[in-house]
């Protein structure tokens, strides 16, 4: 949905143009990232109202700090580091105030993942017809432990490389890969009943 065209200017070039006063460059950059960033925040904090606040906060910080962006890292890494820090700040604030944790990933943790999110009684067609398939997938993703979920979302929504994700999250690349693998395994366990039988021809990556 938000794919980039290779002939378009890079994120960093657009940011540089904005720093020099080109508002349209910012708009182009904004269009590239608004959707993925919003969905990253939405699935990370699992609350639309809070996601909207963090979305606006994150872009405000980008605007405020644009003049000081040095280009040592990619814009995408920079943006998601800002957004992730905003999430953590917000979570800490809520926790301090005694609110329920935004990332109460352990809700229902005593139940097996399959019991929490699987619904073997319906076929994929039935689920899709009622919009339940998407709900199942959303639920499966949101039930992932936070550290796995954020890696999965950065990879899935924005297509960041493992190295970039490592930079955003502040852990080694191999740790990121492990988290991604665990996330996929959990999703596999939770959504396994939805998988359609695949033919031989679909095997190659």
């Amino acid at each position, binding site marked *: 949905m938000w794919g980039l065209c290779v002939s378009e200017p890079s994120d960093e070039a657009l940011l540089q143009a904005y720093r020099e006063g080109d508002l349209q460059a910012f708009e182009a950059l904004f269009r590239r990232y608004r959707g993925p960033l*919003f969905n990253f925040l939405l699935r990370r904090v699992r609350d639309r109202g809070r996601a909207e606040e963090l979305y606006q906060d994150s872009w405000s910080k980008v605007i405020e700090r644009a003049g000081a962006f040095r280009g040592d890292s990619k814009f995408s890494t920079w943006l998601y580091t800002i957004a992730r820090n905003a999430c953590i700040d917000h979570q800490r604030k809520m926790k301090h105030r005694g609110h329920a944790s935004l990332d109460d990933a352990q809700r229902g943790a005593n139940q097996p993942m399959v019991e929490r999110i699987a619904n073997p009684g319906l076929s994929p067609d039935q689920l899709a017809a009622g919009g339940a398939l998407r709900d199942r997938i*959303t639920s499966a993703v949101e039930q992932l432990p936070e550290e796995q979920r954020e890696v999965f979302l950065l990879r899935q929504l924005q297509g960041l490389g493992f190295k970039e994700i490592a930079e955003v999250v502040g852990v080694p690349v191999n740790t990121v890969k492990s988290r991604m693998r665990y996330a996929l395994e959990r999703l596999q366990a939770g959504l396994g009943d939805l998988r359609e039988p695949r033919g031989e021809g679909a095997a190659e990556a």
Partner: protein
Amino acid sequence: MSCDECKEQVFELIEREAVDPEGVRAILDECPDCRAEFEALKASLALAAQLPLEEPPADLDAAILSQASLRVEAAGSAPEVRESKAGEVVPLRKRLLQAPPWAMAAVALLAVGVGVWAIPREVQLESDLETGAPIVAEAARVEAAEAEEVPPVPSEEAFAEGVAMRDEAAADDGAEAPAAVAKGRANRSGGPARKQAARAKKRPEAVAQRTVKPETDREDLALAGAGAAPEAKSEAKETSVAMRSAADVAASAPAPSEAAFGVGEGAAEADSSADARLACRAKVEAFENRLRDERRFRPAPEEQLAMGRCYQTLGDEKKARIWLERAAEYPKTKERATAALRSLSAD
């Protein structure tokens, strides 16, 4: 390559980061177990790719783009730089370790201060929206009234209540002024306009200091217009000629609030006048200040419509279009915003 090694790399093959993709593919062709694991993982990833995507709210996008635009305008060419360390963004864990406690405490105090300061401003703007109170016009009318009959107030009564007091005065007046204007006796009613004038009289030095650019500052307009203390008034007079003319036009219009803010049927006539532009400029400046200062400011549909029309009045077609298009997305303001957009296109 063994099956275990293969299974280790199945995930990386899917993610196109396998060290030995050819070796993995060779095993997958030979080993059914490895193939099954590969297929299962791949299918799960395909399912997860169907995660529903949602759109961010349009009004948030408009606010963000406006903020970006303001930064460019404010800096002349480059957005303002606030951070000393060149926009460096580091993972939070490291950042917290680096931040000295006193800095965190200072930020917390600042946040509380801004929050307290923001409350009366918000109330004020909301009341402006509801009543459309032409503060600019009212301030100049009060000036004329004070020049005639308000007796001097002893200077011993002077006090410094700070910004909150001014905001309170503006909010009061904003809510009640239209009625006073309609009766044509605001200068004699002893109502809120007079209260504001009395407050301003108690703070002549503040009035004198605030006459640098009164035409763009709503609070300053009210204070300068109401300033009856001699030293303040003399300066206010020099700088508020345009302000008074705006007041005259707004007062003579059938619906002052609509003329001043470009809301309502009488807006078309007022929009074309320089006086309406003046009033709009004050309104826009207050609005842009909120956009700039309040990170989570989200204007209501009516405010979006009013701003769209003000930008239109001021000839800023791009911003006008942004806000009118947003306002057109709400049922309450859709019709009026669409009409304004049509007139924008016609222009």
